[in-house]
């Protein structure tokens, strides 16, 4: 949880030298940093998200805040400094991290600052500082050595919804004496009810009015009342699985980049080419093999790197260092969203039907699937025009996609992923090939599926050292 005194944080000195500012800027703009951090004048993602707060600090003055060596260590592996940080790893190489550090160090705080003389040795100042830290409850959010066991400095909110108006201090204001009005004004300006005699210490959060109303609704629900059973939603196993995975997804901000349960994809505000937007993942449970999902969540290498599904996309899926428990929860969440349960399936046992395979190959060639799905290891082609017309590499399909999903996808791609560029070749279940497999669309799609299974890298065995 915290940086313990025993495990002192150290990092290499001089490790950040000789980076290229220009390459660093380019990386910051493409690998995904701007998904969470505002850098420069680009506010599109912040605006698309529409909250009064960012999910990660703005970096426009970071060069005045941290040392280059610290920054290098942090971006290479954020968990080295803080084992529980939400900042993921982007699997930057040493060179990439050096370049990004070089760029970040050019972002200075240009505001004029008054010189301050500090006496850091003064026992009186130290004592006073410690007192202020305790008084304001800094340790409520920050881990401060020696204060790990301190309690919260403010009141409990667990029965706040039942707080009586007579117990609320309206200070010298003329705010209407009602619970609703007190809470609204408190959240609008946490120091609103301060008087000469009563100081208030709650931070000013600058919530938007919409957010204040949502928070107020939540606070109203904070009571010790036992609601009537019939108004309490009983969660069955499936709903519990969905709910616990959903919370994880919210905590790790999956929706910042992905569309999930019809919301999110804020990063798309900054991506011009629709084909480069991170995928919609609501239907992932139905789509991908569980062992593949496990490995992927543990160690994603899909985007921006060779040997991945769409290697030409510059934005990287970060490595979140999920625990096995978290991966399990996320897997059950995705399965639950697709009304499926976790079962051990041996995907390696799925073999193409020898009778269908050659037919599948013919259809695959006739339909010119390779026009969009590249067959080799394609990388970004700078100067050669856009790679936005490319579709996923199909040699990954066998070890990644559920066999039944492939057929469902072929039948009506737009039904599974609204707005997809993948067309249907069998519109309304009708085959354009009346002479192949008796003109049966279903059989033809199964044949293509079997051919895909035959060309790909094998599925991962289900029995593994999990």
């Amino acid at each position: 949880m915290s940086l313990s005194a025993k495990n002192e944080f150290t990092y290499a000195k001089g490790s950040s030298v000789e980076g290229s500012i220009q390459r660093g800027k380019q990386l910051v703009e493409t690998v995904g940093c701007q998904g969470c951090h505002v850098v420069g004048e680009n506010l599109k993602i912040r605006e698309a998200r529409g909250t009064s707060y960012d999910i990660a600090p703005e970096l426009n003055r970071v060069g005045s805040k941290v040392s280059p060596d610290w920054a290098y260590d942090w971006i290479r592996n954020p968990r080295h400094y803080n084992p529980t940080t939400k900042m993921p790893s982007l699997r930057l190489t040493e060179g990439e991290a050096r370049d990004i550090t070089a760029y970040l160090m050019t972002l200075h705080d240009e505001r004029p600052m008054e010189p301050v003389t500090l006496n850091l040795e003064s026992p009186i100042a130290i004592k006073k500082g410690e007192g202020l830290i305790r008084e304001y409850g800094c340790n409520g959010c920050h881990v401060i050595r020696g204060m790990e066991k301190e309690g919260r400095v403010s009141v409990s909110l667990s029965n706040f919804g039942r707080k009586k108006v007579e117990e609320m201090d309206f200070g010298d204001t003329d705010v209407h004496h009602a619970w609703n009005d007190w809470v609204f004004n408190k959240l609008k300006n946490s120091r609103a009810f301060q008087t000469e005699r009563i100081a208030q210490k709650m931070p000013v959060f600058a919530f938007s009015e919409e957010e204040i109303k949502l928070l107020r609704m939540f606070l109203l629900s904070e009571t010790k009342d036992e609601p009537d059973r019939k108004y309490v939603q009983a969660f069955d196993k499936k709903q519990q699985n969905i709910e616990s995975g959903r919370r994880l997804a919210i905590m790790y901000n999956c929706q910042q980049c992905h569309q999930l349960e019809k919301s999110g994809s804020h990063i798309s505000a900054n991506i011009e080419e629709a084909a480069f937007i991170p995928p919609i993942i609501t239907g992932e449970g139905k789509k991908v093999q569980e062992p593949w999902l496990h490995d992927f969540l543990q160690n994603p290498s899909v985007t921006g790197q060779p040997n991945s599904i769409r290697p030409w996309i510059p934005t990287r899926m970060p490595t979140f260092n999920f625990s096995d428990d978290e991966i399990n929860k996320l897997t059950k969440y995705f399965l639950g969203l697709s009304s499926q349960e976790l079962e051990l399936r041996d995907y390696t046992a799925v073999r193409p039907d020898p009778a269908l395979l050659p037919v599948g190959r013919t259809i695959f060639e006739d339909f010119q699937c390779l026009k969009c799905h590249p067959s080799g290891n394609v990388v970004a082609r700078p100067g050669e025009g856009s790679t936005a017309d490319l579709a996923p590499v199909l040699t990954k399909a066998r070890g990644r996609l559920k066999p039944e999903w492939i057929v469902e996808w072929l039948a009506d791609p737009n039904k599974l992923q609204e707005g997809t560029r993948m067309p249907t070749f069998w519109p309304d279940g009708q085959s354009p090939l009346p002479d192949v497999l008796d003109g049966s669309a279903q059989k033809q799609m199964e044949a293509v599926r079997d051919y895909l299974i035959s060309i790909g890298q094998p599925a991962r065995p289900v029995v593994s050292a999990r």
Partner: protein
Amino acid sequence: MYTRHLLKATALCMCIVGQSMAGDVTGKVSFDGAAPKAARLKMNADPVCMKAHKNPVTSEEVVVNSNGTLKNVMIYVKEGLGSRKFDAPGQKVEFDQLGCVYTPHVVGIQTGQELLVKSSDPTLHNVHSLSKDNPQFNVAQPKKGMTLTKKFEKPETFKVKCEVHTWMNAWIGVFNHPFFAVTGGDGSFSLKKLPAGDYTVEAWHEKYGTQTMKVKVAATGAVTADFKFAAK
């Protein structure tokens, strides 16, 4: 009840009378300023498309005709027809993929009328409609000579694109009446046999947006409605 029947009857009569008293709205769409240089379409991604053309192919986003008029402007009655209903014509509207270009680039169709999408190219195309009010479709046509028939129930103008060949796009305008036209090589148009009355006629261009004009169609005779778009 009686009043309602009477109203219905009156409306019907007006309609019949209207049909017999009709005029044509004709005009041309001129273009003001220097014609922007049309972007060359790079068809390198597909040799079949490359081979289909001897000369370089350019984008049809803005086509200024030699007589200073603007091509591919869709003109239609926007308001004034009231609740009149029009039967869909029996003939199909053809929409071809030829040399990896959509032909025509802008096409109008009536609600309920059939659109015949065909491919004259020996390569894979997909036709992806980006409609908002009508259900979207995205159908592949991997073989030359393949056809597909579509109907639209809601009036709207939407884009169509091909994801295999990213340069390919076209526009389809759907109208719940037959009074629409698209300017061709001479920039002229005519909306034929419009019932006598007051109308708002709109001119739409994919790059230059829309313009409207109030038009009064008398019982007999033609009305002229000229539009002018300016270079941006």
